[in-house]
């Protein structure tokens, strides 16, 4: 019995190793999802964001335009400022000489006769794109800088954090306006303008986390098994500070949307015909007192809703990601069932 293949022997002895060997990223993701699912508010936020995504993808289909209302991008002056549910005089006559009235999209039209629903739908593309790009870029930069500053300390910490302090010394919106004014207008300008202001948040959070984590015994333990600095940061330290970074990122998505809208509202974001929500809000402002409420309410509600959904999803994600907050496999339903079973047993015992 000396030349038994140890590999084979082992797998017979315990079936579980293979099962464990199979645990991949996907399983880990499913675990997070399982916990996320239990938070109804967070799920509601996610659903809202997904709906917004669907809206962005199907924008052309939702607002294809009609014969009299060509859509979101082209002016149609006879149809200007039509409130939701109203009709407008197309200026054409039917066979009996009566004017033809047409209805418009459910959100009405703006001051140039463009369909508000179509503009909101197309605007969601820009909003989501800007938000995700801003967060991805500023998070990558901020986390990297913060991790280096926190882990190595000393000179690198000083240099990085002083630069961060300089950025922080300027009001975010002023910084964004300055950058946006200095560069050619366009999507990339908005992304840079909003993104630069978001870097310090990630850098500071990451640095603070890394500072408390790097002296923890488990980091020393990882070092004692031969891990190098890069591995220590990537595998041991950063995963432990994911929860606050994720919260900051989801809140950052919301913040980026608000900042981009603010820039466009001020007229230094994307150039006019682009259906940006902030710019639409700025357009609508002029007609608000004239009773054209729909031009401000719809873009405003759209902005508020996506920010609200993002914040709720962020909270849910934080709880789902942090393994220290997780109740291992605990399900209220199962717990209740078990309780009922025990009660039933007791009742049964009494009867006998």
């Amino acid at each position, binding site marked *: 019995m000396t030349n038994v293949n140890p590999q084979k022997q082992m797998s017979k002895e315990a079936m579980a190793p*293979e099962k464990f060997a199979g645990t991949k990223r996907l399983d880990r993701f499913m675990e997070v999802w399982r916990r996320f699912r239990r938070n109804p508010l967070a799920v509601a936020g996610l659903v809202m964001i997904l709906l917004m995504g669907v809206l962005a993808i199907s924008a052309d289909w939702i607002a294809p335009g009609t014969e009299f209302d060509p859509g979101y991008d082209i002016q149609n002056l006879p149809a200007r400022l039509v409130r939701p549910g109203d009709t407008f005089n197309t200026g054409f006559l039917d066979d009996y000489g009566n004017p033809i009235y047409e209805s418009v999209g459910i959100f009405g039209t703006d001051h140039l006769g463009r369909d508000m629903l179509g503009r909101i739908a197309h605007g969601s593309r820009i909003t989501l794109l800007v938000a995700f790009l801003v967060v991805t870029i500023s998070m990558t930069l901020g986390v990297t800088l913060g991790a280096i500053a926190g882990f190595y300390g000393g000179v690198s910490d000083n240099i990085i954090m002083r630069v961060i302090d300089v950025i922080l010394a300027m009001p975010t919106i002023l910084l964004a306006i300055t950058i946006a004014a200095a560069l050619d207008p366009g999507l990339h300008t908005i992304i840079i303008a909003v993104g630069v202001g978001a870097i310090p948040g990630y850098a500071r959070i990451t640095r603070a986390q890394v500072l408390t984590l790097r002296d923890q015994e488990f980091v020393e333990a990882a070092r*004692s098994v*031969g891990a190098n600095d890069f591995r220590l940061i990537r595998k041991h330290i950063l995963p432990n500070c994911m929860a606050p970074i994720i919260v900051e990122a989801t809140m950052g998505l919301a913040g980026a949307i608000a900042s981009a809208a603010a820039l466009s509202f001020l007229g230094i974001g994307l150039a006019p015909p682009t259906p940006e929500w902030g710019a639409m809000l700025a357009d609508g402002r002029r007609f608000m007192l004239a009773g054209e409420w729909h031009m401000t309410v719809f873009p405003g509600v759209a902005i508020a809703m996506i920010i609200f959904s993002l914040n709720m999803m962020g909270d849910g994600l934080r709880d789902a990601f942090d393994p220290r907050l997780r109740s291992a496999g605990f399900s209220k339903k199962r717990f209740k069932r078990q309780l009922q079973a025990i009660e039933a047993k007791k009742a049964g015992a009494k009867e006998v």
Partner: protein
Amino acid sequence: MSEYLLDVKNLSIYFFIQEGTVHAVNDLTFTLKPGETIGLVGETGAGKTTTALGIMSLVQSPPGMVVDGQIVFEGRDLLKLSEAEMRKVRGSKISMIFQDPMTSLNPVIPVGDQIAEVLLLHENLSAADARIKATEMLTKVGIRPERAKEYPHQFSGGMRQRVGIAIALACNPLLLIADEPTTALDVTIQAQVLELMKALKVEFNTSLIMITHDLGIVAEICDKVAIMYAGSAVETADKYELFRNPKHPYTIGLLNSIPDIEKDEESLKPIKGLMPDPMNLPGGCPFHPRCDHATSRCAEVVPPRVEVAKGHFVKCLLFEEGGA
């Protein structure tokens, strides 16, 4: 190569901090043969943990620095290795068990993956193979393999320490350093963990440096003992020799402070005084302010290391004539 697996010669580690220089380890010398267990015994602050970190080259620098000495392991001086070479030694040839199992495991990585990490770093294994081997290690330390997927917070203190042992032994190291591995555990679990370490030490034929302040653990698990005081080994001897024939006044004081179960003792007999401040060590023998046999010479002359019997070294002027 010499007969010793580990030969620590005149090791001195200082910490240079703003308030002054902390002499954490002073002129420490001890040796360890393959498969042997040595206990480093001493009070809090005697430099035991710093010694362990020194051997692993993990003393934080700055402020810490190895100012003198050699740590010869397998014929190579570890202090002369580059950081990259040292990383290859850590975990595969020398590994460490930490004091507090509550904080020495990464809370966001499943324990199986933490064991697999060592294997991935040092052995040419695929991720799946490393995981299979990790579950084998878990089985060895008495944890059900299906728990590999669970996170450290789902384990009790004793089980976490067993996970720590599994990590330390995963690559079959030649030398294992256990830094007070049972201090954070309750007594029944202590016994379990010690039994486990003893068994695995024999199975893997590993040398062990057992850092502890508990002479009971020494009697249980060690082959020889180094009694540390103020950063140096004041007495080094075989376990039986040390318990039967202690020489250094500090060792005698330590042994006397353990209450005898057969006698009716009214109160404990501690060694009078406190450990000296390592930033401001007394001249000569560091123990002389607390020593009953101290003479005026003790305050001036640093006692040399004297071999009073075979393998029994003492650093005390009382035994000076006996040696060199």
